[in-house]
């Protein structure tokens, strides 16, 4: 319980609700969408919904097979500030001077930046780690919404159209792969498979050790 309380704020910031996904589908990005990444082999869409409801879209290009969430934000050119939360990574405290000033990155009451990801053109999912720990592949999208913490809690507007290639590019694999099949796209992620094999082998070995121990007795 002691571990829950200090992290609750971060969780609220990092994760949103899926209840608003349907609502986000009817909203469209304004004409501020910008794609400056056409020359790069991989692209990630960034959607930022500010507190006044205005949305900003950016298409960030990169050469490596994956890119971290904070690198996407940095490459977008938007002003931002983060704060570290241990092994969960960095939490977003400020984007585009919003809020203008803050004393606590994740206030117990008031608005905060909620982080979302969309894998391979899929629906927005609340991120379960900080922005620096989020790994994105080509075709993925990163969303940030300045959430007022009261009332409905929808996801950011759809990233469709922010990058021309979004939804058609094959996702690349990085070192850190989400274990959730839904989040990683179709099929079982290789990391999940490796984890299942390792755990299965260790459990089998324990069973063998137990049988040998009984036989020795």
């Amino acid at each position, binding site marked *: *319980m002691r*571990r*829950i309380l200090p*992290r*609750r704020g*971060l*969780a*609220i910031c*990092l*994760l*949103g*609700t*899926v209840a608003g996904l349907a609502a986000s589908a009817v909203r469209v990005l304004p004409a501020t969408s910008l794609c400056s990444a056409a020359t790069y082999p991989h692209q990630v869409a960034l959607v930022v919904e500010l507190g006044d409801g205005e949305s900003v879209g950016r298409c960030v290009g990169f050469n490596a097979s994956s890119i*971290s969430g904070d690198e996407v934000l940095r490459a977008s050119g938007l002003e931002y500030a983060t704060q570290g939360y*241990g*092994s*969960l*990574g960095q939490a977003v405290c400020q984007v585009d001077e919003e809020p203008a000033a803050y004393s606590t990155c994740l206030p117990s009451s008031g608005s905060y930046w909620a982080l979302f990801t969309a894998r391979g053109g899929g629906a927005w*999912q*609340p991120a*379960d*780690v900080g922005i*620096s*720990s989020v790994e994105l592949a080509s075709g993925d999208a990163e969303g940030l919404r300045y959430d007022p913490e009261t009332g409905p809690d929808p996801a950011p507007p759809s990233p469709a159209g922010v990058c021309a290639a979004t939804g058609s590019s094959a996702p690349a694999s990085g*070192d*850190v*792969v*989400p*274990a*959730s099949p839904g*989040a990683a796209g179709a099929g079982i*992620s*290789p*990391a*999940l498979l*490796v*984890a299942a094999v*390792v*755990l299965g082998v*260790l*459990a089998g*070995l*324990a069973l063998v*050790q*137990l049988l*040998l*121990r009984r036989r020795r*007795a």
Partner: protein
Amino acid sequence: MSTRSLAAWSASGLVIALSTSNPVYRAVVLLCALNLLLARGRRGSGTRLLLVSIGIAGLIATLVTLLLSHTGQHVLVRLPAGIPAIGGPLTLEALAFGMATGLGIAAALLAVAPLTLVSQPHELVDALPAPLARTGAAVGAALNLIPGTLRSAVEIREAQRMRGWRARRVVDWPAVAVPVVLTAIEGSMTLAEAMESRAHGTGARTHFSIQRWARYDTVVSVTAALGAGGFLALVVTGGAPGWFPFPVLSAPAISVPALLCCALLVVPSLQVRR
């Protein structure tokens, strides 16, 4: 297997179990420790009792988190809000986090369990560096006080029941507590005299048998250190993300290099005992 290499292994397992909130890595540490206990644990050392105790501790951690944390979107059951502390929604997210916490406790306890269940107490003291030998003996004696006192309490209670007397109320407890305290003091005096008669503290500690450092101990120590060091490096650099299920439950992210670092702890369980 040398107690020092075992201590290095335990320290590595403990570091991994405590440095992450990811249940997958904790589960790997737990299974590696379980393998080690089954492969090398001494008979009659209380392995089964420890496993039961760890299971109960994990269950308590799960229940406490489930009952006291009302955060999360998937409500399993809603207790009346009038019940202090536990009233409110009990969520799937809290249950998952409680289970992950229990898994962490179990993994940490099992990581250090081989120090007492695999090696003998005198081997532990022998494994200490010479400057810490006296401290080790004092700490060992102090740690032995609690189980010794419990044993004494059971013996005294049984002796009094044999005489037809039974403590029924709180006011009857001094009849058990006083002899227990007196026995503990007497035991401490006996221990001190025994240590003095063996010339404890007059010179370097002698050994009945010397533990030899085998090549396999080097393998165990190096792989354990590599596993813990690599895992810590990945945690610091963000390569081994933690896990947090609130407010919406999600599967933990898995890093294959971090997973392999944890799996290195299985090495001491792989040696065939002759």
